[in-house]
């Protein structure tokens, strides 16, 4: 379980608080979606929830972030890294730069966890198979397309099987099938008890995988509710976030008095 208790945060050198009184709980085995307009604080919340801010990024944190009941601020970086994983928006931020092949890049996480060779290889193969990137195994990680690099970044984290995982727009550069595979993989990970927080603009994807939805606007959480009901909330539109296609289309048709067979929008 990952918990934020009345968290405030500001970046080093800035007076402005980017997160304001954020309370949030990620339960084991649950996927929580995080949406909000540009610059609402989604990426910052990801950095704080994963412990990278303030530990690595600097800045000033108010309130508490707890991982399985332990205050994060007291944990050494190497221990924190084994408890909470993060996938960044830009895969280039994540690439280790030391691996010659995609296989080595993905195996790096399990190796750093000190896992035996057999398990490292097994997990690496599993992560690649899950995202169907086996064909990239021998490729140079520096010479991938944007979407391929993103899949490799996600596979690298999957192979570590973190208990808690924070993802900042993990599918931004992926083709529709790739997005779906990532969604399936995250659902499977949640099935093993991992708690996940996913910041995404693709509400249709969140609509299919989330247990709960959080809306953040100007640094504050303005909605925290169970899915799928949360996707119907007027709070989304007020914050400049679109409802999923099925809901938007349903409303557009209803406004014109058109009824269509149930399930046609699912």
């Amino acid at each position: 379980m990952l918990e934020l208790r009345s968290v405030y945060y500001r970046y080093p050198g800035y007076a402005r608080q980017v997160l304001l009184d954020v309370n949030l709980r990620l339960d084991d085995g649950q996927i929580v979606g995080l949406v909000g307009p540009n610059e609402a604080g989604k990426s910052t919340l990801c950095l704080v929830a994963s412990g990278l801010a303030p530990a690595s990024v600097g800045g000033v944190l108010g309130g508490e972030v707890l991982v399985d009941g332990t205050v994060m601020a007291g944990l050494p970086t190497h221990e924190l890294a084994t408890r909470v994983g993060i996938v960044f928006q830009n895969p280039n931020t994540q690439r280790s730069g030391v691996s010659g092949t995609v296989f080595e890049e993905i195996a790096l996480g399990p190796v750093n966890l000190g896992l035996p060779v057999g398990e490292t290889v097994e997990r690496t193969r599993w992560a690649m198979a899950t995202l169907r990137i086996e064909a990239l195994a021998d490729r140079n990680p520096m010479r991938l397309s944007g979407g391929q690099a993103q899949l490799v970044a996600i596979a690298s984290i999957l192979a570590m099987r973190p208990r808690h995982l924070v993802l900042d727009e993990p599918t931004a550069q992926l083709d529709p099938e790739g997005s779906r595979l990532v969604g399936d993989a995250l659902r499977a990970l949640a099935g093993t008890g991992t708690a996940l927080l996913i910041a995404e603009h693709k509400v249709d994807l969140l609509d299919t995988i989330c247990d709960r939805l959080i809306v953040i606007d100007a640094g504050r959480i303005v909605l925290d509710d169970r899915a799928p009901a949360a996707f119907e909330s007027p709070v989304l539109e007020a914050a400049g976030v679109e409802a999923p296609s099925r809901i938007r289309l349903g409303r557009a048709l209803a406004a014109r008095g058109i009824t269509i067979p149930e399930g046609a929008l699912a």
Partner: protein
Amino acid sequence: MSGAPGSAGDGPPVIRCEGLVHVYPGGVRAVDGVDLEIRAGERVAIIGQNGSGKTSLVLHWNGLLRPTEGLVLIDGADAAERRVAQLARTVGIEFQDPDRQIFAGRCRTEVAFGARNAGLRGGALEAAVDGALEAVGLTDAADTNPYDLGYSRRKLLALAGILAMGTPVVVLDEPTTGQDARGVARIQQVVADLADAGRTVVTISHDMRFVAETFDRVVVMGTGKVLLDGTSAQVFAEAAWPTLHSTFLEPPVASRVGARLRVGSTPTESALVDVLTGRT
């Protein structure tokens, strides 16, 4: 299937690829025999799975990549005989990753860089920069450091830098990545304004709804080849779905609903609502 009927596709060809092949060092055959013609004023979206060669294809248009085989003609002239700086006056490319593009300490300086290289000076340069910042909604951030902006606004800044160059052809590589609904609407407006000004707009995108709503013509790529080329109604029609699936794509939600209701190819939500309204 060819260019969209009734769209602004009857201008002279601005981009022409003939048997274009690109093999990267190491042997990856990213572009594998592409024949493609884009006419002045067209709005073209290139879609296809990750690694299908979309970005590699467009990088030939401003000379950042050179063909392994085949020919690239820009405004009718062989690109091989022109330098990157010359080609960049015709084709402006917004990169997928804005941080590959941004380097200046002020947004205004960043946006002015490409325009200055394109030969603009004095009042014309100022006007181009102001216009581009306004188009992407960053007028207020003109004197800010680009790295104080979040990712979504850095993407818009990179777009402004390309707009200010005033190139006849504008290429947007994944422009909607990281944008909220308002950001996507802003980009759609930018594309419409460019088209109204007679400029050619090409995008690479995985956002099928954005593609269907904003572009006249859709080119589908898979493993370095062009698989489909037509209007969004043609490319997203049910008959084409097996081809789309073969390159990891899915039709927009409106297409799927339209097919389920058997009302024909409705790639946009407005097309779907229109056809259903006509029936009731």
